[in-house]
């Protein structure tokens, strides 16, 4: 096995200077913003680090990372092929609602029910994401736009279903009834449940497919040069449909994991308010969709966001600052890569 050189190559690719510079730039701009708003930036950043990486808070970071890594992979897969899936929110809630409703109606007990629910969530959300790819390959509707526009009806309809037909009348809140305890995901230790393992497995599979399989090679080729890939014999329309199905399916699984593993019911807006979709998209953009790098940047972003809670608690700097930092990193990188392109 030629493991050693590969790993150094990976390590080099994962720590390219531009990312470090972008993070530094974001930290400086964000620090200025904190300073202007009358707080101490150093203290704020110290709280972010302490609130995400200390022994007490590391479980929270990992807990946040499970859905975020999932949504990052959902965004990274199409990105690897030069496609953008902006409809993660819609796919997430479809998966979540299916995951919340199936255990209520399915006969039987235990792990089988949750496996079926996870599978159905993946299928439903995957097919919905595929709709955008179908619109592009058959009708030429740009997926970038259609995937996002399809998200709004999905969010609206699931919200309606959770508020009216499937509402838990006992609580009076916009949420579906509790799923039976037996159908919930198995808890390993602390924040980690079977869902975390599933996401880790999906992550490993994504890396494997990307590096070792024909499918992954063809997808990377598409991302580098669409026409060349088509000329080389890749069935572009099928590839787009397949990739979007996989992307949506991952988003659906994330929704179902959140419901089956921690919320135990579909609560209106609860899946969307942490904005995993957009953080995931940014984490994937950071590395151009390369799966291993995407996972690392997702872990970085989940540390940032988990630390944000501690920062808000301790220094009263609003934690939405972390969203600003993420956006600045992406913008800086987008421009910086452009500069490099011109120079070469």
């Amino acid at each position, binding site marked *: 096995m030629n493991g050693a050189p590969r790993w150094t190559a990976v390590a080099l690719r994962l720590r390219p200077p531009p990312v470090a510079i972008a993070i530094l730039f974001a930290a400086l701009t964000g620090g200025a913003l904190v300073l202007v708003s009358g707080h101490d930036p150093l203290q704020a950043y110290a709280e972010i680090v302490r609130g995400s990486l200390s022994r007490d808070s590391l479980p929270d970071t990992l807990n946040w990372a499970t859905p975020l890594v999932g949504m990052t992979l959902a965004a990274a897969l199409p990105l690897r092929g030069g496609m953008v899936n902006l409809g993660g929110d819609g796919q997430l809630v479809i998966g979540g609602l299916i995951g919340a409703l199936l255990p209520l109606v399915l006969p039987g007990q235990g792990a089988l029910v949750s496996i079926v629910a996870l599978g159905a969530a993946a299928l439903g959300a995957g097919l919905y994401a595929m709709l955008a790819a179908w619109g592009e390959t058959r009708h*030429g509707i740009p997926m970038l736009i259609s995937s996002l*526009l399809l998200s709004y009806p999905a969010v609206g309809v699931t919200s309606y279903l959770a508020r009216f037909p499937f509402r838990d009348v006992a609580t009076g809140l916009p949420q579906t009834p509790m799923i039976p305890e037996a159908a919930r995901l198995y808890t390993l230790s602390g924040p980690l449940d079977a869902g975390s393992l599933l996401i880790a497995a999906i992550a490993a599979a994504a890396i494997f497919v990307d590096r070792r399989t024909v499918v992954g090679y063809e997808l990377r080729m598409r991302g580098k040069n669409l026409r060349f890939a*088509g000329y080389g014999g890749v069935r572009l329309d099928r590839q787009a449909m397949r990739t979007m199905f996989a992307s949506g399916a991952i988003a659906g699984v994330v929704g179902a994991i959140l419901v089956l593993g921690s919320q135990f019911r579909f609560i209106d807006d609860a899946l969307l308010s942490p904005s995993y979709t*957009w953080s995931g998209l940014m984490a994937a953009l950071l590395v151009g969709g390369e799966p291993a790098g995407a996972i690392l940047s997702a872990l970085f972003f989940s540390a940032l966001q988990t630390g944000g809670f501690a920062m808000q608690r301790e220094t009263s700097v609003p934690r*939405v600052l972390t969203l600003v930092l*993420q*956006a600045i990193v992406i913008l800086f990188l*987008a421009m*910086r890569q452009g*500069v490099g392109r011109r120079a070469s």
Partner: protein
Amino acid sequence: MSGIFTPFLFQSAVQAISPILLASLAGVLCGRVGVFNLALEGQMLVGAFAAIVGGYFSHSALGGVAAAMAGAVAFSLVLAYGATVFRGDPVVIGIGMNLLASGLTAYLLRVIFGVSGTFSDPGIVGLGRIAIPPLIGMPILGWAFGRQSVLTWAAFALTAVVSVVLFKTPVGLRLRGVGEQADAAETLGIDVARYRVGTVLVAGALTGLAGAQLALGAVSVFAEDMSAGRGWIAVVAVMLGRNNPLYAAAACVLFGFADALSINLQSEGLPNQLTDISPYVATLAALVITHRRRTRVLKPPAEVDAATPGETATTQRAVH
């Protein structure tokens, strides 16, 4: 006639059209110089927030509108330089700017006003509706335009202005030249980068007006992410209109009526979770109908480019 097509429908439709129309005019201008603008949503949001800040501290609607334009122009610098001088990917920049706008406005809302969610204050003067007595009595036209804010009229007037400037003036000719054949324009002595940056900034001012209409038009309030997808609908209007301001305006009229209809359906007792989606469904339907015919003629489905929608992005790439 009286069931759905009430005076209220026309009034609320025109009101819904104006911010989308202003934003899509901005998108048209950017598209014409070869800069694909996906950041309309974020630019509008920054404009809306700046309008409330300006209105709050100046105690005048004019101050609010001026602040909205200034804020949106400043924010547009990112796109103006990022997508031209620095040659960043306009799609990535657009996504980044939308998220930056969402985060920055939420952050500043907490820092400046100490609240989260929504903010309104009696001290903020809205644009107010101006009534035109001779119009009010007329059916349809009077319903639609009898009582509207200045910015609503401005939106429709600017559609005409942008059309004339683009197609009937030397500046417009150069501008289109920059978008269609940058190299040719360059050899004719046109500073391509300056035209691009300038146009994107002017477009930024238009998105500022869109934001001001959103925040100060009907009720004076700012809510987090209050642009709520309108910027994306404007992007679609630009695409449907193929960078022509009049066609884009026609698309905006369609979306405005879909939006107004959703308010009507809501008052009929339908839950708003369902009625709120009607503008997006109308947008999707418009995309399906218009693209079906076009693509069959133009190119086989396999050749449709994935990450670069519309012809704007193709021009953009040809420039590099």
